[in-house]
């Protein structure tokens, strides 16, 4: 019995300590898409200000749900929330950074950027119509590449994900069969394949499974040296995913503060535009003014000081004009 009392004493001490120690903390959750850049920003921000911004990548669906349930200080989602839903759930929304979703493959000796696909073929692969890499529909786009004979394993997101939303939005926009059979959204019923949790999970499965194809945020593909795929864009050019093609897509976007910046960047018309680009958004609870001010402070700091870090991780910082719009939006809502 004595041991238990001693344990209790120790624990009581720990708690008094805990209450004193408590650092200023913000907790956010949501999209895995911007996780690398947010946590890199948070790491630097903590060094400068001492504020801990705990961002957990649980998927955009989770971000929306947890901010709606008010279990976090801010939510993050790649799936722009419609203005009427923002009003209904009493949320504020603004974009934080722009990036691209890229299809990635695991194909023996094929190197990053070598493989080329168009929207239709990509769609057919994810529908399960194109079952092998040696299928004519793939090989005719890729003269000179040698393909293994194995069956394709599709890897998709098992969690509610903005990356999925951007990707399926693109497929639904460009491929009628997809729109009819599957549709677009954060979590859809993929016809074939295996599901990985988060960008991390998909990356992991693609890396480990021969002849697989998946889709992840570009930073994940790049950091893990995955074989990303060139896509044919709306203008008819094959483009490589990367900083320039994402920026090109971002520049075509006309974000509107009145709509809470609701906008898709998929299938952008620019000549060099990456077709599966998207902005990622931050969601705030309207009534939590105090917490929102702190959150905004962080993003204001990131807008000013975080561009290089973002570029390093192959995200596109918001263009200056858009940053100004967002700052004006904060002021208008009284949170800056």
């Amino acid at each position, binding site marked *: 019995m004595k041991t238990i009392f001693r344990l209790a004493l120790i624990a009581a001490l720990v708690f008094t300590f805990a209450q004193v120690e408590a650092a200023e903390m913000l907790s956010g959750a949501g999209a895995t898409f911007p996780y690398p850049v947010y946590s890199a920003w948070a790491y630097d921000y903590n060094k400068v200000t001492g504020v801990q911004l705990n961002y957990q990548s649980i998927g955009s669906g989770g971000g929306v*749900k947890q901010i709606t349930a008010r279990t976090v200080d801010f939510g993050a989602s790649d799936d722009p929330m419609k203005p009427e839903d923002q009003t209904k759930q009493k949320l504020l929304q603004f974009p934080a950074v722009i990036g691209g979703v890229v299809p990635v493959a695991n194909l023996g000796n094929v190197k990053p950027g070598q493989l080329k696909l168009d929207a239709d073929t990509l769609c057919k692969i994810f529908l399960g119509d194109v079952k092998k890499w040696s299928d004519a529909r793939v090989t005719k786009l890729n003269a000179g590449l040698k393909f293994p004979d194995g069956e394709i394993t599709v890897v998709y997101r098992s969690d509610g994900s903005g990356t999925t939303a951007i990707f399926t939005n693109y497929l639904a926009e460009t491929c009628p069969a997809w729109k009819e059979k599957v549709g677009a959204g954060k979590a859809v019923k993929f016809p074939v394949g295996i599901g990985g949790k988060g960008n991390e999970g998909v990356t992991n499965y693609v890396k480990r499974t*021969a002849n697989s194809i998946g889709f992840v945020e570009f930073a994940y593909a790049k950091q893990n040296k995955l074989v990303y795929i060139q896509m044919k864009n709306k203008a008819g050019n094959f483009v490589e995913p990367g900083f320039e093609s994402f920026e090109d897509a971002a520049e075509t976007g006309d974000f509107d503060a009145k709509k809470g910046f609701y906008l898709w960047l998929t299938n952008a018309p620019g000549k060099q535009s990456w077709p599966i680009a998207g902005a990622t958004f931050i969601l705030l609870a309207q009534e939590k003014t105090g917490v929102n001010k702190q959150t905004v402070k962080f993003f204001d700091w990131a807008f000013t000081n975080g561009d290089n870090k973002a570029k390093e991780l192959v995200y596109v910082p918001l263009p200056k004009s858009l940053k100004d719009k967002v700052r004006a939006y904060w002021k208008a809502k009284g949170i800056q």
Partner: protein
Amino acid sequence: MAMTLKRKNPVDLIFSSITALASVTVILFIIGIIYVLISESSLSIEKFGIVKFLFSTEWNPVKEDFGALTNIYGTVLTTVLSLLFAIPVAIGIAIFVTEIAPNFLKGPIGVAIELLAAIPSIIYGMWGLFTLSPIMSNYIEPLLKKATANIPLVSILFQGTPMGIDILTASVILSIMIIPFTASISRDSFNLTPAVVKESAYAIGATQWEVVKNVILPYSKLGVFGGVVLSLGRALGETMAVAFVLGNNHRISTSLLDAAATITVTLANEFAEADNDVYLSSLFYLALVLFVMSFITLAIAKFFLLKAERKYSR
């Protein structure tokens, strides 16, 4: 009994009420869990009903149409498969430990089994992803595919690409995880066979195997059966060991090389992220289904174990 006399002391009354309260929490938790799960899933229960939810194969967040069958299928299939793999091995271990092993080995092996039963399931899951899954996809699964290619019906079980993230791998990991658990319960049951009975069998000239087959197994069958059902209950509710290698696929497939979803894995993957009410409510509904399934299974196991206990104590 003595306690009725001693109750008069006021401190004793307080102490006894505190202990009573503490033990009643167990009942309160069970009632609380059932109540909360039902009330949280009421939206989904209203929308889909009971029969439709249990037998629908839809799991479609876009259309907000949910059914539990794919999850139940995955749960039952992985559990049954893992038991098929685990039971013979576990009983083999139990026979080895109680009858075959030399005395100096019995203790250490027994301890080893108990230690292995203590390893957390997440370790099994992680090991499954990093070590077992490549072995399965590179060696074992292609081999099984080749071996069964010409056998009708059986070959259906091994259709598709061997990718190591599938029902078979998940079941193997689950079985490895429950082997120590099943083995130690079986061993305990075997040990309950009175030495006198065994000795008299040896005395009339039975071989060691005949003693096992005709004396020990029949004598302890209730206990072993209870242990197996208990393992079944454990396996039904296991999350982390399978979450890494099951591939979260809401489809019913006849091939063991396909990904699937269990109730537990669906909850682990989707619970924190379901963003509309019906979706979340359906996940609570799934949790309720799992709770009821495992509660019934465990109650059955307990029934047999109690019956076995009563038989031995007689």
